[in-house]
């Protein structure tokens, strides 16, 4: 027994040394597959875990009422049993030190905040509310204002001491979508700051933390008295929606992981079956001289399993490292710190490495083990492989791969869909590749020797060529599609602030401040300002149909109907808003007239003549639509969906907003002087906002591209497996060509051109698929205009072609230069 195992060990060792290229290709393929799977899977898992664990925290309590109105009167009216346990109010504002000025997100907390999760203040541990007259701030504000803990800042009309730095805030949803650093203020200090004024933009939340047994009845009671325009949510439902959202996101991630894994499996299959086919006669010899079948089985199982385990270990390590890097790539897009990856991921990685190897290797290994010894006398006869058998094999391979994906997805439908989709995709690529090969073959007559040999070589080894083409095209698709979308998303957000048009917004202007601010803006060098009234209102009905009963098809329309609308009124039409239908009112009209933005009207089904009713601070106001306007939202000026004729809203509580332009040189001093004089104002610099959006999109896209790159790498592994499997034939072909008098340069050119062609065909197919996928995504999901960049496509084509040529040529370089002598011996 010991001697047999020694023999197995020696046979395996020698095989490994002899076929090191094949095993390198195999190792790389498994490593890449496991890396992709581990990195993406455990990343997705961590996001899901983090979301699940924190969705209660994110909601802030077991029950939550949220609104864009001041809920204080409602709270005051509540009986003691229904009073909220904590309150939160959030709004943008300006924090300043006299010299420096920064847009911040103020959070006013009251009651027992936080009900769930922990509010961590640096060096002070867990805290609830800042002491009177002080605030806690996010660290970035200290650097932005160039201050330290203990210094004072101005917020609204108050001077407040910075009493601490926020390390962790439980219910901060998406840090990166914020417009500025957080400042936490106690509810008791709100009144003095006068931050809350009619028309100021804020969100308020009433939080309840109660034992589960009381929640249902509490929810029922609150539901009955819920003020209009506010939502009641409970943590359990919130959990479901966040779970569903993260599930969607992680599904896409997992799909790219599956694509990478599948390609890796294809590569493993090509490597292993190529190697084992070459071992048929040696194995027949072994059996002829008396070796048991088990010796062959043990030798190759040992080799495959140890390669799989080693590669799996490397893959898991690489995957873990990468997924630890991902959060850095994503910046603070992810909430808080992610839980640590589980040991389960390591076990899973190793199991997957073994399974992908064995699934791909077992059929050819089984045939090898079953080789009849008499084959040693009939080495010339190739094994009879019927078409039927090959199709059967392919189906069996696909079935086992699907099983693996289903197991990994832990979801039959998802796994089956993913594998069916991926196989279909690769089949389509292979069919398209086949068609292109047929075209190329037709061209053979016109080209010279080099062209002819390059093309016929591709066609002769059709199966391998098509495998490589399909795999590379899939990889290119995975990498390119998100890049194309990213560009369009960026274009959408990156509408550069046009020259000589407004570049700032000023919000929260009180009616009585309008003349002074207008004058100050002019003095400080601002242009193109015109404060517009802005009134918060809720849609009540359109033509007697209550807003809740409107037949709205899209979720966007539903949101429009339910959210707080910002109304305005004006005498004269806005010059940049062309009237599409109807006529603008007479400046001194006494009718209650309305002008609607085109898209708003379409979404909510309002037309000329519709009577629309809004509710403003408890009072209902109606008007008849007499014009429909077009608004160019890409011009970053103040625009409104709904504008009333003058007079109707004159007495409604309103604030004023304006956009304005100021030269960059004057911007800082203007902002400071403005806030010094009117602390209630909020100035928003649009360049900063756009830059923030851009960086979010870029970070998201780079995370997705990163996954795509892993898939492309797996496609590269398939190419490598093909090149290694073809080495013997390449040597023979090169020797034959040389014997026929071809020069080294010609031979080199033939193989360079062959791989160049392979890369180009794969890139063309991948690019085509990416453009198509991008178009579907842009139209169906993202609703953005879509113009794939020709430069990016050209670059992809060029780089893919070059890379494939390089990898291919590097892989077969030695085979080309080996002398025909060693070569013929090796093939004997």
């Amino acid at each position: 027994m010991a001697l047999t195992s020694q023999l197995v060990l020696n046979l395996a060792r020698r095989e490994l040394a002899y076929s090191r290229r094949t095993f390198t290709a195999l190792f790389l393929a498994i490593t890449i597959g496991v890396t992709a799977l581990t990195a993406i899977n455990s990343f997705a898992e961590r996001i899901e875990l983090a979301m699940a664990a924190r969705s209660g925290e994110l909601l802030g309590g077991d029950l939550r009422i949220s609104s864009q109105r001041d809920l204080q009167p409602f709270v005051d009216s509540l009986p003691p049993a229904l009073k909220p346990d904590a309150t939160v109010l959030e709004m943008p504002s300006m924090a300043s030190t006299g010299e420096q000025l920064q847009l911040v997100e103020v959070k006013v907390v009251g009651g027992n905040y936080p009900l769930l999760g922990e509010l961590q203040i640096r060096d002070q541990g867990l805290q609830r509310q800042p002491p009177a007259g002080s605030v806690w701030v996010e660290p970035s504000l200290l650097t932005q204002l160039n201050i330290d803990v203990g210094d004072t800042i101005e917020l609204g009309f108050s001077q407040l001491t910075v009493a601490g730095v926020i390390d962790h805030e439980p219910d901060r949803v998406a840090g990166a979508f914020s417009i500025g650093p957080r400042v936490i203020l106690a509810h008791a200090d709100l009144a003095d700051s006068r931050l809350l004024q009619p028309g100021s933009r804020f969100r308020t939340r009433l939080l309840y933390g109660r034992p589960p047994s009381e929640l249902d009845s509490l929810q029922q009671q609150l539901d009955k008295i819920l003020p209009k325009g506010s939502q009641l949510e409970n943590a359990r439902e919130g959990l479901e929606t966040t779970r569903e959202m993260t599930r969607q996101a992680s599904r896409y991630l997992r799909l790219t992981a599956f694509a990478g894994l599948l390609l890796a499996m294809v590569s493993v299959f090509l490597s292993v079956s190529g190697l084992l086919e070459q071992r048929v006669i040696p194995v027949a010899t072994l059996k002829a001289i008396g070796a048991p079948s088990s010796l062959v089985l043990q030798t190759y199982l040992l080799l495959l399993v140890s390669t799989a385990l080693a590669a799996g270990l490397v893959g898991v390590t690489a995957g873990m490292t990468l997924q630890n890097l991902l959060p850095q790539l994503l910046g603070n897009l992810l909430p808080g710190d992610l839980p640590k990856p589980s040991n389960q991921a390591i076990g899973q990685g190793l199991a997957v490495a073994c399974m992908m190897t064995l699934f791909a290797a077992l059929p050819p290994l089984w045939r090898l083990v079953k080789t009849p010894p008499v084959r040693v006398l009939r080495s010339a006869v190739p094994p009879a492989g019927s078409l039927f058998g090959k199709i059967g094999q392919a189906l069996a391979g696909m079935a086992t791969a699907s099983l693996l994906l289903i197991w990994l997805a832990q979801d039959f439908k998802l796994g089956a869909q993913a594998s069916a989709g991926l196989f279909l995709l690769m089949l389509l690529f292979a069919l398209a590749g086949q068609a292109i090969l047929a075209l190329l073959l037709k061209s053979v007559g016109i080209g010279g020797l080099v062209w002819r040999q390059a093309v016929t070589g591709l066609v002769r080894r059709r199966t391998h060529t098509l495998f490589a083409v399909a795999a590379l095209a899939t990889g290119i698709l995975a990498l390119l599609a998100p890049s194309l979308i990213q560009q369009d998303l960026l274009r959408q957000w990156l509408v550069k602030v046009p020259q000589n048009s407004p570049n700032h917004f000023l919000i929260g202007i009180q009616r009585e401040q309008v003349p002074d601010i207008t004058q100050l803006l002019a003095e400080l060098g601002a242009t193109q300002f015109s404060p517009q009234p802005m009134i918060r209102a809720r849609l009540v009905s359109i033509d007697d149909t209550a807003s809740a009963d409107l037949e709205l098809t899209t979720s966007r329309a539903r949101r429009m109907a339910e959210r707080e609308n910002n109304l305005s009124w004006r005498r004269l039409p806005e010059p940049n808003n062309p009237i599409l239908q109807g006529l603008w009112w007479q400046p001194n009209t006494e009718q209650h007239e309305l002008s609607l933005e085109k898209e708003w009207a379409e979404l909510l089904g309002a037309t000329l003549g519709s009577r629309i009713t809004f509710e403003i601070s408890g009072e209902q106001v109606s008007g008849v639509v007499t014009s429909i306007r077009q608004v160019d939202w890409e011009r970053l000026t103040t625009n409104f969906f709904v504008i009333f004729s003058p007079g109707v809203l004159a007495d409604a509580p309103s604030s004023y907003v304006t956009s304005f332009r100021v030269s960059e040189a004057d911007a800082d001093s203007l902002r400071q002087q403005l806030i010094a004089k009117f602390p209630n104002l909020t100035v928003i610099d649009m360049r900063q906002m756009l830059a923030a959006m851009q960086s979010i999109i870029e970070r998201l896209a780079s995370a997705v591209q990163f996954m795509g790159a892993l898939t492309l790498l797996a496609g590269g592994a398939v190419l490598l497996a093909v090149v290694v499997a073809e080495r013997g034939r390449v040597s023979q072909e090169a020797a034959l060509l040389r014997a026929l008098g071809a020069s080294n340069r010609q031979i080199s050119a033939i193989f360079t051109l062959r791989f160049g062609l392979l890369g180009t065909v794969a890139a063309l197919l991948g690019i085509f698929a990416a453009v198509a996928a991008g178009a579907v995504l842009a139209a169906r999901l993202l609703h953005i205009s879509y113009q794939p960049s020709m430069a990016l496509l050209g670059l992809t084509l060029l780089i893919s072609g070059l890379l494939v040529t390089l990898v291919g040529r590097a892989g077969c370089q030695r085979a080309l230069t080996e002398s025909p002598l060693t070569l013929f011996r090796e093939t004997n």
Partner: protein
Amino acid sequence: MISAKKLSKSVSLQEAHFTILQPTDLDIPAGSSCAVVGPSGSGKSTLLALLAGLDSPTSGTVTLSGVNITNLNEEAKARFRRDHIGFIFQNFQLMPTLTALENVALPLQLQGRRDAQAVAKQWLAKTGLSHREQHLPALLSGGEQQRVAVARAFASEPAILFADEPTGSLDGHNGEQVLALMFDLNADKQTTILLVTHDQRVADRCDRQIALVDGRLQ
């Protein structure tokens, strides 16, 4: 000794039946050498494969050294070959991944012998290839490879040696060298030899010749 009774082989190919070997009786005494000659496709290799237990007959029995191997299963036949039979093939059929020495040691290792390495060295020395011990087959000439194969075949000192065209891939000089080696060792060890060949001069060196034409013993 090798003995066959009513040994035949037929195959069906695309629903047609071919008889490759007509029922054949054969007795080759222990220690003697027998050449099988005949034109290409006459069934020589088939006969060899059946006698050596590499293939199963359609009918008839094969008895080697007193053991009826016909009804043994594949693994038992393999064990029998390991312990009693040596092979030399036209295309050498060395294990490409193993060195010359390891190739020679292989049958001994399969038998579980601890001295496999040392014994293999001796046999390789007898074929004059001591300086090639660590070389892979691909680095050896055809003649050298076949000499390694001869060493491999004799290393386990089998009772019976089967050789299918042992000189078929070699030129005259190398072929002669290999034959000389084979017959010398045979004289030494009293091995029973069954040898398939095209070459009348090779056949003439055997104690006995049988001729096959169209699967029929003449």
